[in-house]
């Protein structure tokens, strides 16, 4: 069988020029509309993307600026600590270790928070931190004191905590009377519970690393006490079990500070503290 008849048949089947003019134009209109719609959508997308990119870039630049500022100025001007960081204050005494000291506000013995603020504060306004009592003479070193936690922060309760390594000095107002013995400010880097309800009773044995003598500042009138965190504090002599550590390490790991009255031998103590700040 020759191929030619098939070819001839195929040629006879040609449809010739066939056009769908109206349909063709309508389809073109549809395509044109679809293209325009798509182009508008693309332009809108581009604008949104550009705004988003600018936002991201701006955020990135601001982030870098913040990091730079923090690195360049690691010590913020002032941070108020007294009673407004949300950390608990608590009193403590040697009663828990067999001594006969008495302190007010009462110590916490079962995890409850017995601390109360006293009025009026500095300038006869608001409240102050006050602790008073009698340092016992039964134990070798009768002591009473008040302590507050510096860190770590407790986001759940809103307390912020504070890293005192970023600061150069501590400042607070103080008044009162310590009839015998000595009042020291202790920086402790003991590992403490992160719980916001941690009290003296629940704290592990603190490691009082550095101390500063502040007895002379306790007078009947409010005195401003300013101490250089690196120069005015000395490694705690009483801490025989504690290996010497550099002040920077202690500041970096500082967990609490204490106003600590010791060697009072039955003396009456009444100390008011207000406007505590690091700067």
């Amino acid at each position, binding site marked *: 069988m020759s191929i030619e008849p*098939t070819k001839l048949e195929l040629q006879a089947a040609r*449809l010739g020029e066939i*056009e769908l003019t109206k349909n063709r134009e*309508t389809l073109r209109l549809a*395509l044109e509309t679809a293209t325009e719609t798509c182009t508008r959508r693309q332009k809108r997308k581009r604008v949104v993307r550009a705004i988003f990119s600018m936002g991201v870039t701006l955020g990135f630049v601001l982030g870098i600026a913040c990091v730079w500022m923090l690195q360049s100025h690691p010590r913020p001007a002032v941070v108020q600590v007294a009673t407004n960081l949300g950390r608990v204050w608590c009193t403590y005494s040697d009663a828990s270790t067999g001594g006969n000291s008495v302190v007010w506000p009462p110590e916490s013995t079962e995890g409850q928070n017995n601390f109360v603020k006293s009025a009026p504060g500095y300038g006869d306004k608001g409240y102050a931190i006050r602790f008073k009592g009698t340092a016992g003479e039964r134990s070798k070193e009768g002591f009473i004191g008040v302590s507050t936690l510096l860190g770590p922060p407790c986001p759940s309760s809103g307390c912020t905590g504070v890293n005192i390594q970023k600061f150069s000095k501590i400042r607070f107002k103080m008044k009162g009377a310590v009839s015998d013995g000595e009042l020291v400010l202790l920086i402790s880097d003991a590992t403490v519970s992160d719980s916001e309800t941690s009290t003296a009773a629940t704290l592990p044995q603190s490691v009082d690393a550095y101390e500063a003598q502040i007895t002379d500042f306790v007078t009947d009138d409010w005195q401003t006490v300013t101490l250089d965190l690196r120069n005015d504090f000395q490694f705690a002599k009483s801490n025989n079990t504690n290996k010497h550590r550099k002040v920077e390490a202690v500041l970096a790991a500082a967990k609490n500070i204490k106003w600590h009255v010791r060697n009072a031998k039955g003396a009456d103590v009444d100390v008011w503290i207000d406007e505590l700040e690091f700067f």
Partner: protein
Amino acid sequence: MDKLDVDKQFRDDEGKIDVLKLYDAYYDCIFRYVLNRTGDVEVARDISADVFFKVHRSRWKFMFTGAPVTAWLYRIAGNEVITWQRKKKYRPVALERELQRLDILPLSLRGDLREEINDVQAKVNRNTAFHKVNKYVEKLPNKYQEVIVLRYLEEKSIKEIATLLGKKEGTIKSLISRGISHLRRSTRTEKDFFLQNGLLVEASPNEGVNLT
């Protein structure tokens, strides 16, 4: 000419494919090609519409690599035709539906479009030779269908077909030759069937597909 300069005229300002330019240049070709393969004007119109809407939707991922853009168009059209042939219930995205979606089809125009389709379909129906050939051609594998339709029903040269399909001329010649052989075998089988059943009086030993 750099091979990347191929189809340069179909690129928009951003270097992406310009669907409207492509449409203006190739709509008639694609429509006739699909009509020659299906014999149904409405299906051919809808498949052609679908081809260009598919191009429109995929234009952002089309890369000009040197292969002619027509090869892409004919491949889409061929695949749509195969789907339609395999499953006649399958309908491509109807133009009317797309127009309604885009809200650009006035009711007055709808009647005109239908009338035009009916007129063209009547013209196609009058060509009995086309229907006879179409019956055999659509049974061929797709690769033979496309070259035979382009060569014999659309009178394209071997070179033109090679350009349109993005294949070598030698390949096109070979495909046409094999396609014709397939066609001859299928027509002979049918002829034998008719002869065996007394439905056809053999007039000449070399009649090919002329079964009337």
